[in-house]
């Protein structure tokens, strides 16, 4: 489509996309080459990077590089699912309160504000502690259900300003029903905005997952980047100088987060008429 061509002209977008795709490719392709189970013991504990072991081993003697690949898969999955959930909730609530206004707007806004005021991380921790089941999917859902307020607010602001436009009025006096107006007159004008919000929600989701898992509240059964960090800290990798057990994981989290934000910045420059330069 036209938009993709324009986006590819943005340096920021292309660089961010490149970094992201490189990381994702690694996460998907490497385990296809190296089909071992990342939880298998392959050598002594804390072996440094060497022939056959690109990033050495962790405290148990497992292949760190393989873990990194699998962990990235999980983290990306959590980030993506959390992003989808948060964006969907934020979109629906934002559209309703922005378009309908009145009492519904007041109720939803109060509800949103409550969620904003309470630090979502605290809620995440409390929910994670009280739930017995620990899985990546559940974590993703919990993150999604606590990080939507930002999107809701942004969508509400956009909807509020769009609903007074003439084409919306024309649609009304042409007999459009409210859902149809929202779908055809409001949403398309917000589409780029929503996509950007989605990208940011994914980034936020990945960071949240890393944080929760590092505290030990993450999924037990799967490896994620945050879990890698947790193990490294728990088993004193820094103290023993085994930087390969946690620095790569941290770098990957930072790189994914950076690439998503950079892509978003690139998209903003293209789509946001207010900051477009010549």
């Amino acid at each position, binding site marked *: 489509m036209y938009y993709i061509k324009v986006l590819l002209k943005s340096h920021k977008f292309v660089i961010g996309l490149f970094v992201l795709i490189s990381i994702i490719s690694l996460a998907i392709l490497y385990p296809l080459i190296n089909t071992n189970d990342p939880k298998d013991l392959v050598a002594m504990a804390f072996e440094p990077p060497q022939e056959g072991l690109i990033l050495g081993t962790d405290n148990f003697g497992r292949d760190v590089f393989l873990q990194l690949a699998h962990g990235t898969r999980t983290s990306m999955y959590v980030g993506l699912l959390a992003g989808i959930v948060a964006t969907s909730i934020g979109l629906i609530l934002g559209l309703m309160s922005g378009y309908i206004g009145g009492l519904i707007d007041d109720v939803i806004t109060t509800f949103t504000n409550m969620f904003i005021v309470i630090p979502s991380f605290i809620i995440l921790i409390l929910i994670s502690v009280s739930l017995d089941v620990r899985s990546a999917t559940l974590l993703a859902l919990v993150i999604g259900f606590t990080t939507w307020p930002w999107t809701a607010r942004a969508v509400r602001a956009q909807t509020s300003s769009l609903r007074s*436009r003439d084409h919306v*009025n*024309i649609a009304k*006096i042409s007999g459009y*029903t409210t859902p149809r107006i929202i779908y055809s*007159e409001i949403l398309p004008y917000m589409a780029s905005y929503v996509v950007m919000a989605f990208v940011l929600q994914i980034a936020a989701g990945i960071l949240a997952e890393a944080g929760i898992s590092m505290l030990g509240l993450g999924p037990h059964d799967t490896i994620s980047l945050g879990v890698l960090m947790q193990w490294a800290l728990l088993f004193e990798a820094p103290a023993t100088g085994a930087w390969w057990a946690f620095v790569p994981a941290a770098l990957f989290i930072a790189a994914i987060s950076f690439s998503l934000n950079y892509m978003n910045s690139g998209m903003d420059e293209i789509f946001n008429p207010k900051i477009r330069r010549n």
Partner: protein
Amino acid sequence: MADNNVILSGKNVTRIFGYGKKKVIAVNNVDFEINKGEIVSIVGESGSGKTTLARIILGLLKQTSGELLFDGKRRKMNSYKERLNYWKNVQAIFQDPFSSFNQFHKIERVLRDCVGLSGLSLTEAEIVSKMREAFEFVNLKYEELYNKYPFELSGGQMQRVMISRIFMLKPNILIADEPTSMIDVCSRATILDMLMKLRVEINMTIVFITHDVGLSYYLSDKIFIMEKGKIVERGNAVDIITNPQHPYTIQLLDDVPKLHEAWNLG
């Protein structure tokens, strides 16, 4: 003026925005009567309440108090069906032709929607022939434009498509909110002529909303002058221009530059 000729009237119409100290009384206890087939202008400067009154008449904004009567009966806009019914009779043209279109759709969609509003089920061929007829009325070629997007048309062309939409809908009342203020001076007459032609064809009542007192004089039979939410003077266009009574009207006419009279700039 026979009472049974009144198609639209308002009694004690008021609209307040905000509350407490920030309260703004946009429309303040306004009464008005519009007769069938008349051309009426509501003239006022920004902040006079004319746009708010227009929105209330259109049913896009709810009045805080007071009632509107359409064809002698109290207007009800509570259910979807009642609103739909009202909009079969009352339609609008807005100031900015560009923002009146959804930029993501072809311009013919505006006309197709009219068919939906009328509630008839027509074949595709019938719909196309109706659209062609509407385009012809405004001197546009259907074949050339129907699948173009709004940004490919000029302001004047877009406004003409909006008029063709009114041609298809054939409402009893048209609210025209500054229809030519964003059109080039040299293309204005085209738009205005088409509106007048339409009025003659379907005996449509037109309510112009404008800040241009000269334009309102040229176009209309009756003028309502609005200031700060109230109608301060009303009457025949000729009477108001040649013999204004209210001090605001007098000052308004005085402030407009004329061609043959001197303009006292002090």
